[in-house]
């Protein structure tokens, strides 16, 4: 395979270089950027009772992503990202992979229409197409930035967009009466192609298309409509079963300035449909099943001080139990039990699959998902139970409030609270109540004492409470708290000493919902949590330049599971030495 790739890519590189030379002659532009990274980790098993696994393992790689930008004319760009990746321990090409990671052509036609073809990054609205941040990543204050950067880069998570392959175009119009502007955006993509599943079974193509229309009616008032459709094309496979999930959204935004405040009020609503089409190819009659319809409504108010030193958001939201939007409810992390962790996937001498801990969610790039799903994915309630599927989490209604404060670059504070109820109960007429209380405080101590070298302390606390009344079987009460602490001290110029901790404590009862392939709840499995996840780290970060850094850190991580039958048997403790050298070219 490598030989084939080399055969293809070597001429391509020569061609690129030749193009570059030709470009110099014909005023075409070819330019390069990219990323280079060296990564090395050494994981150590701390438990002495696990005797069936190696005491330590090491892993690492070097990679270079070369981005080639070709501008044959000023308004057109051809972009290709080539990756050369070499695992540690490989020699003379064996273990070296060369991949084409991204390809895209984009440009502007007649200075009016923008277009992109190939790998495109799409985001629309929080209820239609939106790639929500993974759990545990809020309020970290860049504590685990080297890990997060890698996860996001490797999984193409950019600006809450989904990476898709297809065509996108947008254009806008301006008017001098009645309305001020009209903006249009359309896309069509294929998240998954038809593939062979069995000797005579082929899955259909999965398509996603949509459009947005935004109009600035007056200086203060704007109106938007979004539409997205996630569906399978039955004729492109022979499984005879295809999903269809359109989502409609509209919003009205009123913004104005009063005294020292910028205020905005946003009203948005919409609805979704979802069904599966069962095509009988022989007799031509189709039938649709598992049809659901659901709507949502949100009213949000934002108060922003003009200098951005303070912001307050207050809102109310209702999301129907049957609101389904594949583009916005797909999660980055799937807690499907079949997915194993990369580091020490089994533990104990009984070869028990190791549950995913906070450290796995931070560091294991293979745990993350890049595909859109038409049904709700599994989640772990101790990490996120209030809104596991983002703002469009079905079966929620309630209020939320958040604020940010920046006091003279000395003190940064964030507060987030929410109170939600279920709209209908799960497995009972009793409904869950959810409470979120979260706060984050960062103090730049060097700013207090007017010192040039950075010295900051930050601390955050995230608390989720889930309660439900009812009889002895129905009642539940789950407490989950996430604590982050971080010290960042510049001991020499651009040379930082860092200490950090993250701890997740969970206790109480909850039921995990089990759904079938059509998203219908089949069962509730009872779980009684009493556990604590922890990650501690100490390290040094050398920021050579803005885009170049070297980071070395030592992590202590694990999980204490107070299993009632054997309080310590299922606990696990590991350590890791990590080195990252990253250069953005």
């Amino acid at each position, binding site marked *: 395979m490598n030989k084939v790739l080399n055969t293809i890519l070597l001429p391509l590189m020569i061609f690129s270089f030749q193009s570059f030379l030709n470009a110099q002659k014909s005023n075409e532009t070819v330019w390069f950027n990219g990323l280079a990274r060296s990564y090395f980790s050494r994981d150590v098993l701390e438990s002495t009772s696990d005797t069936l696994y190696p005491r330590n393992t090491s892993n690492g790689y070097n990679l270079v992503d070369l981005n080639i930008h070709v501008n044959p004319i000023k308004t057109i760009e051809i972009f290709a990202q080539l990756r050369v990746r070499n695992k540690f321990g490989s020699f003379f090409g064996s273990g070296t992979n060369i991949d084409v990671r991204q390809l895209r052509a984009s440009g502007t036609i007649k200075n009016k229409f923008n277009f992109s073809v190939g790998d495109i990054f799409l985001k629309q609205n929080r209820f239609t197409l939106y790639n929500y941040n993974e759990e545990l990543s809020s309020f970290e204050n860049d504590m685990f930035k080297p890990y997060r950067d890698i996860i996001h880069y490797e999984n193409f998570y950019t600006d809450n967009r989904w990476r898709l392959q297809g065509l996108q175009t947008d254009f806008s119009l301006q008017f001098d009466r009645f309305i001020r502007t009209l903006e249009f955006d359309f896309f069509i993509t294929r998240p998954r192609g038809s593939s062979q599943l*069995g*000797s*005579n*079974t082929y899955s259909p193509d999965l398509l996603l298309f949509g459009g947005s229309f935004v109009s600035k*009616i*007056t200086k203060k*008032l704007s*109106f938007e409509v979004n539409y997205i459709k996630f569906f399978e094309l039955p004729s492109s496979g022979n499984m005879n079963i295809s999903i269809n999930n359109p989502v409609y959204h*509209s919003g*009205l935004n*009123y913004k104005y300035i009063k005294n020292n405040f910028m205020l905005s009020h946003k*009203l948005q*609503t*919409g*609805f979704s449909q979802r069904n599966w089409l069962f095509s009988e190819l022989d007799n031509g009659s189709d039938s649709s099943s598992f*049809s*659901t*319809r*659901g*709507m949502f*409504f949100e009213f949000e108010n934002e108060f922003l001080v003009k200098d951005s030193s303070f912001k307050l958001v207050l809102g109310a939201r209702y999301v*129907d*139990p*049957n609101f389904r939007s594949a583009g916005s409810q797909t999660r980055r992390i799937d807690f499907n039990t079949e997915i194993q962790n990369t580091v020490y996937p089994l533990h104990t001498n009984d070869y028990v699959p190791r549950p995913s801990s906070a450290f796995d969610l931070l560091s294991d790039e293979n745990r993350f998902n890049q595909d859109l799903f038409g049904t709700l994915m599994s989640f772990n309630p101790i990490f996120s139970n209030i809104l596991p599927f983002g703002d469009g989490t079905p*079966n929620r209604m309630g209020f939320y409030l958040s604020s940010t404060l920046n006091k003279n670059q000395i003190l940064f504070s964030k507060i987030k609270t929410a109170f939600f109820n279920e*709209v*209908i*109960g*799960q*497995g*009972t*007429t009793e409904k869950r109540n959810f409470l979120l209380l979260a706060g984050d405080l960062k103090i730049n101590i060097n700013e207090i004492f007017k010192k040039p070298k950075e010295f900051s302390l930050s601390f955050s606390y995230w608390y989720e409470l889930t309660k439900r009344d*009812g*009889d002895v*079987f*129905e009642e539940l009460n789950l407490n989950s708290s996430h604590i982050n602490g971080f010290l960042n001290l510049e001991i020499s110029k651009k040379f930082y000493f860092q200490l950090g901790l993250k701890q997740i404590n969970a206790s109480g009862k909850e*039921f995990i*919902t089990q759904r079938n392939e059509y998203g219908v*709840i*089949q*069962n*509730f499995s*009872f779980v009684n949590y009493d556990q604590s996840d922890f990650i501690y780290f100490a390290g040094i970060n050398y920021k050579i330049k803005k885009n170049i850094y070297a980071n070395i850190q030592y992590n202590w991580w694990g999980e204490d599971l107070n299993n009632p039958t054997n309080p310590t048997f299922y606990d696990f403790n590991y350590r890791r030495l990590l080195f990252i050298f990253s250069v953005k070219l």
Partner: protein
Amino acid sequence: MRTIKDIIPFFIFLFFFNECTKGDIEGPLISDLYGAFSITDDFLLVNKTPDFSSGDIVKFNCSFNKTTDWKITITGLQSSSVKEISGFSNLIDSNIVTWNGNTSQLPFFQKENCAVELTFLNESDKLRDTLNIIGSNAYEDGILVANFENGLPQDALVSWTSNIGLRTFEIANDDPLLGNAYFKMGGKVNWDWPIGKLDLKLNLPSITVPAEEFYINIGILSDSIDIHTGQFINIIISESTLPFNDDLTPNQAGQQLADIFDASDEVYKMKIPVDWHGWRILSFKYSDFEELSPGASGVIFNKNPNNITGIRIASQACPSAGANVNCPENLNKLVRTDIDHIIFTENSPLLGN
């Protein structure tokens, strides 16, 4: 502001006039899943005197307050045949849970009284009833290839290894699986693997299912008296378009062999170790068959049950003497791999119907 007055009614329209499909609760009741178990509708049998030979079925009905693993066990009081039907639900629906007189464990049910018992995993409750079979299932719900009741099928070719010591390639009536006859297939060939084979000509234009849903079912009898190590049956299926028996040249033993099972044709195989005592009915998906000769030049291997033109049942055993002494313990033992009731079924195996 006038524009706002125009747009807000639009939102109100969307909010109030959009029909949603939410119910009162989502999912099964937790009190049912985790509460105390109780029967809400009694265990009921519809048709307690079935005549399975004329297509009768027995229907079962029962409901309980929680979703659980349940099992219906029907035991023939004379034959000791057992049929088990199981599921995970809170309802045994008589439209779905039925019995057509087949068995999960040989021998087959006869005309006899049966005990019926409904049990639940992790629950002590047991519900009992009885029924009386007045006509047993003939197991002919499929494409019957051979039941040997009237001798060998038309165009069948029987052959055995030249100079075989003892051989039993013949119709017999002493111990049939079903009906009154079966095909004895065995013998003693100490020096080589092949014992003999039965070639049957087929024509299956009416099959509508793909290979994944097409089953080959066969009854096989062996005994533990002379059981060989390395004793098995090979089932070979051909989709060759050659004539079944055009070449009339006999083999060394003087018998005719079908011409459609050569390694150069589109032929598939399945190897079945035979190491038990008594009759068993085995079922295989056609899609699980392997290509006989994957590298055959010019052959496109694309299983299609419609195109099957023949089936070969071959008996083999590990040699105990001669040039290849692989199993000396088999010396002078008589191989027994008798067969009966070869039948193709669509969508499910014979005993799963």
